[in-house]
């Protein structure tokens, strides 16, 4: 055990290496601001992590090498297999799981700190006890909340909001109980009770479940981002408890990232974070209001007509939504784009910030299908181009193209920024039916005179269109 003891815990040498580690994280993220340098940035951050881990392994007094090897071995094996096997459509689930294990690790560390401190029989200084309590609560909420988010994304439990009557009251009581127990623990810091701390973890676990269960599938991008921010905060709190700068800085970076993404997602839906968390939006029956019974007039076309419209256009904008990911149609769409480009048609992709199940998800799916990132246009960038676009093709997207968001102040999605496909000369919507999207409201776009509906599975339709263009 003494053999590897190179650094004194909390000593200057170890801290200096931790500073090197977090500097490499920051440099790594900075390189992540451009697609061509991001891969190198990721490697730089990974080197930083290696420095931090090796430094910790060389601390004086470390023992239990067998168990450390066991934990590292299991974790590494799971991580390697998962990262090789995961499909790009499943990235939201994977990130949800990683948020979960991250939060879980923090909660366990906090528990162990409390237990170890009690067994030493020392007075618990408040400036480490309070962060431990905070880390335990946030870690436990993140772990359980993320598991529910994972289960919803993986369709293990229904994605529609699940809520009991009086749910808000139950959540408020739970939160209050958590605060009271935290105060009791802190007041009794000379000999905090481990039982109370475990109760705290359990209550936080229940709260994590109850907060995420009522949130609908369409709001998952916000939930994942928010849980990401939470896990970051919990890591920073663990850093305060363990007096470790690497944890404080790295946790704060993760927290900032999650917070920025949460705010961007909420803005893209024109809703506040608290509204998303507590309203149970999406999946509510659309009953009443529109009087869904009667069918409004619309134009329906086949793949061949669509192919002709596209082939004789000068510029085409493809608007992908989550339906494209579900149908695994990204490669087929790329083939359509390839055929069009061969004919000299300009093809771009308009990506709404909440297209997909997590921030940036659609970009990854299209990158996987070899779409050059220069052709992926953000909403603000593409909207001014729309009036000059000959054909806009909407594939598996719905609410993010609904002009009601701009035109109808009474619409549930009023004010939500949309991709203004209705401004294009012609619109082709590839969709299975006229059914409403997550917001549960009718899309006025489908009934516009310049809109043609192509009712089909996105993948099959795209393959057919590509073949038809090739035959022209």
């Amino acid at each position, binding site marked *: 055990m003494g053999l590897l003891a190179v650094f004194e815990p909390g000593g200057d040498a170890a801290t200096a290496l931790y500073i090197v580690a977090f500097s490499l994280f920051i440099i790594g*993220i*900075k390189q*992540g*601001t451009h*697609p*061509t340098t*991001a*891969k190198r940035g*990721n490697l730089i*951050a*990974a080197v930083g992590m290696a420095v*931090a*881990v090796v430094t910790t392994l060389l601390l004086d007094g470390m023992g*239990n090498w067998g*168990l450390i090897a066991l*934990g*590292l071995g*299991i*974790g*590494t094996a*799971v*991580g390697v297999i998962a*990262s*090789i096997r995961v499909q790009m459509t499943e*990235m939201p689930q994977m*990130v949800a799981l*990683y*948020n979960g*294990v*991250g939060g879980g*690790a*923090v909660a*366990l*560390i906090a*528990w162990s700190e409390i*237990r*170890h401190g009690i067994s030493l029989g020392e007075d618990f200084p408040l400036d480490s006890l309070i962060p431990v309590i905070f880390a335990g609560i946030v870690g436990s909420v993140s772990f359980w909340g993320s598991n529910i988010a994972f289960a919803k994304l993986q369709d293990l439990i229904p994605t529609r909001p699940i809520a009991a009557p009086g749910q808000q009251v139950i959540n408020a009581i739970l939160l209050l109980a958590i605060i009271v127990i935290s105060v009791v623990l802190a007041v009794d810091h000379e000999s905090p009770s481990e039982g109370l701390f475990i109760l705290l973890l359990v209550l936080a676990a229940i709260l994590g479940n109850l907060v995420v269960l009522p949130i609908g599938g369409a709001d998952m991008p916000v939930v994942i*981002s928010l849980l*990401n921010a939470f896990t*970051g905060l919990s890591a920073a709190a*663990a850093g*305060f408890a*363990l007096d470790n700068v690497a*944890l*404080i*800085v*790295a*946790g704060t*970076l993760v927290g*900032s*990232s999650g917070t920025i*993404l949460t705010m*961007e997602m909420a803005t893209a839906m024109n809703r506040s974070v608290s509204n998303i968390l507590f309203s149970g939006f999406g999946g509510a029956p659309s009953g009443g209001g529109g009087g869904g019974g009667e069918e409004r007039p619309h134009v329906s076309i086949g793949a061949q007509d669509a192919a002709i419209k596209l082939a004789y256009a000068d510029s085409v904008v493809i608007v992908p939504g989550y339906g494209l990911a579900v149908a695994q149609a990204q490669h087929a769409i790329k*083939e359509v784009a*390839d055929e069009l480009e061969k004919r000299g048609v300009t093809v771009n992709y308009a990506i709404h910030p909440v297209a997909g199940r*997590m*921030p*940036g998800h659609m*970009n990854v799916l299209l*990158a996987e299908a070899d779409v050059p990132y220069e052709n992926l246009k953000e909403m603000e960038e593409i909207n001014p181009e729309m009036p000059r676009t000959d054909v806009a093709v909407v594939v598996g997207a719905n609410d993010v193209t609904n002009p009601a968001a701009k035109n109808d102040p009474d619409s549930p999605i009023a004010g939500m920024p949309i991709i203004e496909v209705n401004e294009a000369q012609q619109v082709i919507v590839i969709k299975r039916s006229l059914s409403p999207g997550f917001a549960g409201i009718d899309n006025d776009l489908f009934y516009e005179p310049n809109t043609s509906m192509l009712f089909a599975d996105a993948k099959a339709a795209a393959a057919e269109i590509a073949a038809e263009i090739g035959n022209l």
Partner: protein
Amino acid sequence: MSLMTEITIFVLAVFVGFEVISKVPTTLHTPLMSQTNAIHGIVMLGGLIVLGFADDGLEYVIGTIAVAFGAINIVGGFMVTDRMLGMFSRKPRPKAETDGKGGS
């Protein structure tokens, strides 16, 4: 390290974090999230310290699980990010190859 020093570091890190991360383009937000998952794996340090100094049965179990969780974050996070970013930095395929694929 005093509490105030730690708070100073925390506050400065908040500013650095917001400054750096707000410059990451939307296109790269998914890799950013998986990369921050990996960076969050820094909590494995806490797990290692807790396990390395543990001296009873339950602490062994808790510590081992915490280290495994952290390792999943680190290894899985960096590897899947690398895989995704590889898709972005890939050069556009030469036209001929695309044609060959399309001809099936």
